[in-house]
């Protein structure tokens, strides 16, 4: 720092060199953990040069509820309600990922009807999540409330379905090892069909409000570009990866459950920016509706739970397994090590939001602090699974 007048040229220096030295102090702002736009208790230590982000360090752990330690002290089935609380918007997919991992560990088969019901619930959850994400993203852009109201209106209809099936709106605790807890009655299937058939019309209304909106386009196009190479190296999964142009959807790659029977496309983005991430989610919703219509139409009769599945005294043999599914936010996986006892020896959750946050700094560098909020919104994080 020059002690004397900073604008006077140093002896022998050129004027532009003095101008480069005079860039003032950088301002460090702590956004969060209480901040209306950080999607939960998430803190970003942002270093700003004026309005431009120079450095960004995410700080989390404000919702660390030691889920993994609880998993070691609870039985396998006892951890199922805790998985609801990981990504608390999408409890059905969390349950399925955990059930899949345990079924791999124990070699447990799942009847066909249960597989169809699982697909139906997972795709309904994907609709719910992507709709709410669009609402929250627009809330961050400043559209204070309206798209979120529309999103939550549809979410309430899906939550009514979940509540009548599993007993709870959000924390469903519905999947079991070897099937599902309760067989959906015909009236439920009819209600689900009606909802799904009407969803395209809602999406048309939602898109008419949002997709061509010039404010949304001005604020999100070109903001937070993610290159495919960085996305793959940083372990990004889910719509964020596909918006960067990498065609990796675990429903197609791992072909788990009965997804190979459904003919659905995987939308890919060209630019990897925030607008692409928004559009990918809208297009994925349309594909989910196709899957849902076909699954509800073809649902076979049969048992909802494998008759040989053991609920009480469930002690899988020693070994380990890693099971993963394509959740609405990305790859959600569970890694379990069993030592033959009723509790797992090691219970690990691979949370998509946690890994997707790796490149937050890379995306935000060079943008303004207002863009940092929108980029965070488009990554789609839920602190329950970031911190576990």
């Amino acid at each position, binding site marked *: 720092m020059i002690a004397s007048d900073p604008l006077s040229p140093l002896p022998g220096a050129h004027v532009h060199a003095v101008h480069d030295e005079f860039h003032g102090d950088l301002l460090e702002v702590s956004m969060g953990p209480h901040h209306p736009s950080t999607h939960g208790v998430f803190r970003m230590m942002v270093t700003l040069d004026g309005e431009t982000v120079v450095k960004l360090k995410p700080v989390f752990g404000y919702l*660390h509820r030691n889920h*993994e330690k609880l998993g070691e002290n609870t039985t396998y089935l006892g951890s199922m309600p805790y998985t609801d609380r990981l990504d608390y918007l999408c409890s059905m997919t969390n349950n399925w990922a955990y059930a899949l991992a345990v079924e791999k560990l*124990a*070699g447990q088969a799942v009847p066909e009807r249960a597989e169809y019901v699982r697909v139906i619930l997972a795709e309904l959850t994907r609709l719910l999540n992507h709709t709410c994400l669009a609402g929250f993203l627009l809330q961050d852009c400043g559209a204070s409330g309206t798209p979120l109201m529309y999103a939550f209106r549809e979410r309430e209809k899906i939550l009514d379905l979940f509540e009548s099936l599993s007993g709870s709106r959000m924390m469903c605790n519905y999947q079991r090892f070897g099937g599902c807890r309760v067989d959906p009655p015909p009236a439920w299937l009819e209600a689900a069909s009606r909802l799904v058939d009407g969803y395209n019309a809602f999406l048309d209304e939602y898109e008419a409000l949002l997709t061509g909106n010039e404010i949304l386009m001005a604020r999100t196009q070109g903001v937070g570009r993610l290159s495919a190479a960085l996305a*793959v190296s940083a372990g990004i999964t889910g719509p964020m990866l596909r918006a960067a142009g990498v065609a*990796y959807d675990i429903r197609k790659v791992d072909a788990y459950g009965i997804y190979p029977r459904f003919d659905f496309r995987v939308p890919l983005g060209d630019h990897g920016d925030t607008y692409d991430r928004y559009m990918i989610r809208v297009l994925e919703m349309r594909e989910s509706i196709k899957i849902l219509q076909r699954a509800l139409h073809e649902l076979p009769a049969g048992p909802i739970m494998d008759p040989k599945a053991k609920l009480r005294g469930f002690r899988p*043999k020693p070994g380990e*397994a890693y099971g993963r599914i394509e959740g609405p936010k990305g*790859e959600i996986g569970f890694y379990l090590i069993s030592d033959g006892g009723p509790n797992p020896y090691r219970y690990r959750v*691979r949370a998509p939001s946690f890994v997707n946050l790796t490149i937050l700094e890379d995306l935000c560098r060079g943008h303004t602090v207002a863009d940092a909020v929108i980029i965070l919104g488009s990554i789609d994080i839920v602190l329950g699974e970031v911190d576990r």
Partner: protein
Amino acid sequence: METPEQIRDRLLANFPGAGAVVVANPAPSAQHSIAIGPGRAREIATWLRDDPALRLDYCSNVTGVDWPEKEIIETVGTPAPDPAGGPAKTAEQKTKRIQPGCLEVVYHLYSMALRHGPVIIRLRTGNRTDQITLPSLTPVWRSCEFQEREVFDLFGVVFAGHPDLRRILMWDEFKDHPMRKDYVEPDDYEWEPTAHDKVLAKAKKHYPAEPAATGEATEGAKP
């Protein structure tokens, strides 16, 4: 995709003396893993990422596991002939040995380019006390950055070469590694309404003592 045995053979051919062992997985998932020595782990990781047959460019999951030291009792039976001429008796000899504990880091690798996986590699530390350094694989796969920080925070494994190794989930002043099997929680269970088992035992430390034989009627709780 190649089997773990084939990968191990090619690995040993490319990195002789690296120490790669296939760890069999008895569960029906049949996800066997390869334990590699920490010495050349980063070179091996780079090879796994860039080898044209494997192209494991996506590190999906980094897990820490705590294996505390175990006492193993082995019984060796030696047949001793019966001097009276009857059937031979077996004299059993029990030997106790302590299997040293270690901290283990498990990496699940997939390939987005070739759409196969998982290939699971394991790195083990020397022990649980002072030899807890492992090479960081963050320069190879960026996705390890936060997950290795979490393993450092919760287990205590120090990753050499990590760009920013500090606590991620617990606060910075915290002094212990909570996910270890021998972690003792702070004592803040003063009262439990529906207490049972271990929780009841923890809460009872704060309850007032049982009344003496003379029968004191009421006591307040300790503050």
